């Protein structure tokens, strides 16, 4: 599958990446080449094959729904770009 500039722009929006206009053609070219590579998979009939998500075929382990972590909000917020009164600051979302 070959991706054009409009498709790249759409994917970039889904991925929340601001790609510069002048870089879009190069990404379209690279992405198309990568998709061409991965489409070699289509030569194989995989009907009936169960997808393998975990290489050991194991399910995610669950734990009891107990509080096990201490509150470290101040510690973790110390590395945030902008915080105030324990809250993360972002541009105004609601006018």
């Amino acid at each position: 599958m070959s991706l054009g500039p409009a498709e790249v722009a759409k994917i970039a929006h889904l991925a929340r990446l601001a790609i510069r206009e002048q870089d879009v053609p190069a990404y379209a070219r690279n992405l198309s080449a990568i998709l061409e590579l991965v489409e070699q998979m289509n030569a194989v009939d995989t009907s009936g094959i169960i997808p393998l998500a975990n290489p050991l075929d194991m399910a995610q382990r669950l734990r009891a729904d107990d509080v096990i972590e201490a509150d470290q909000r101040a510690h973790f917020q110390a590395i945030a770009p902008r915080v105030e009164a324990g809250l993360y600051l972002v541009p105004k979302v609601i006018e």
Partner: protein
Amino acid sequence: MHDKTIAQLSAGLAAGEFSSEELTRSLLERIEQFNPGLNAFITVTDDVALSQARAADERRRQGQAGPLTGVPIAQKDIFCTDGVRTSCGSRMLDRFIAPYNATVVEKLNAAGMVMLGKTNMDEFAMGSSNENSFYGPVRNPWDLDAVPGGSSGGSAAAVAARLTPAATGTDTGGSIRQPAALCGLTGIKPTYGRVSRWGMIAYASSLDQGGPLARSAEDCALLLGAMAGFDPRDSTSVDRPVPDYVAALDRPLTGLKIGLPKEYFGEGLDGAVARAVAAAIAEYRKLGATVLDISLPNTHLAIPAYYVIAPAECSSNLARFDGVRYGHRCDQPKDLLDLYTRSRAEGFGPEVTRRILVGTFALSAGYYDAYYLKAQQIRRLISNDFQQAFAQVDLIAGPTSPTVAFNLGEKVDDPITMYLSDIYTIAVNLAGLPGLSLPVGFVGQRPVGLQLIGHHFAEECLLNAAHRYQQITDWHTRTPPAFA
């Protein structure tokens, strides 16, 4: 002191020939002298190292030292280190001071190891040459025009140049084994779930696995014994006892069945690399192993499947970098969307961007079945190939990489060519198997690596086979002349 293995350093420390502080100071001096030319370290942690070294010496005085106490190590900059910058090779995390230690770091600290610093790497572990680092490329100590491999390129270069006796690495598609091969080292990627991924910044969560790079299989056995084990904080960690890897090293190889997959010796394999690998296989015959030809018929599908699964998981994992809670934030965002999109675009380099885009596409509505599910079905076929092979043989052997180290800049403009350099390592991650690379010769001045692949949790067998080979050969003892 810098040319000693961990086993030798451990003996020297135990005998009181030198203290950990003396050893640490001498290596910090070497780092200061050689790192500017290699760029193997992103951050050198002198203060942490000296304080850990003094604590290790004190522990020894109290009779509490273990085999790794006081031995220096470098951490790949993907492992979170409390209070120390953890950049993951990215502008996104250039100013990120980790607020906690990864489990691997905790475990090595508990063993009394001394952290010299954080090593350079391809951004978010995406790359095979270390040229995708925000902090610039790393040079290969064997030939400064060559890449060290990637993504654990800084770790490999630092060990090869004798700036540290060992380093940690992570391997999602070959990122421990390929740089180990290209730098003449021994490195092991354990079975998926063997080493905790907690605090190891995620790239592709169903493939990522941490492990050591060192000078010998014996050193890797010592380190893996300290790194491995169940961790309740990693939901994919496997609850299974850690064997004594060192105790298994000397077992005879008589009767060991080694399979050579014909797909690993075909088109694309450099002739001189093939000859070095064949010579190593001949040594294994001398050690009593039986060598059989086998087939892994879906090998050619490993790279296609990987370049769906790894980008898909990466696009999901890297969604957390939003410019809000930590990491890079753009200046003057005009609204929330602008904050997200510009912070991410400024924070990520081109290869990470490409993989996020590919993954986002593969997971998007209408394409999920054709790409992501299809790739997971192919992944099952690849895993089945290995299962069938391990019904016949104990180990699989072949080249780690189709060529020796390539030149800096040689593949940087062509992502696909770069991807193909991982042709022999990627399937191992898809199947979750352990794989080890050990040095078996040179082409010119650039090292050749042999890859050994084992069944799930057969790390003992891999380390044993590598160690026995290293008892009768001396490739692993060679030092790059400029760093002797």
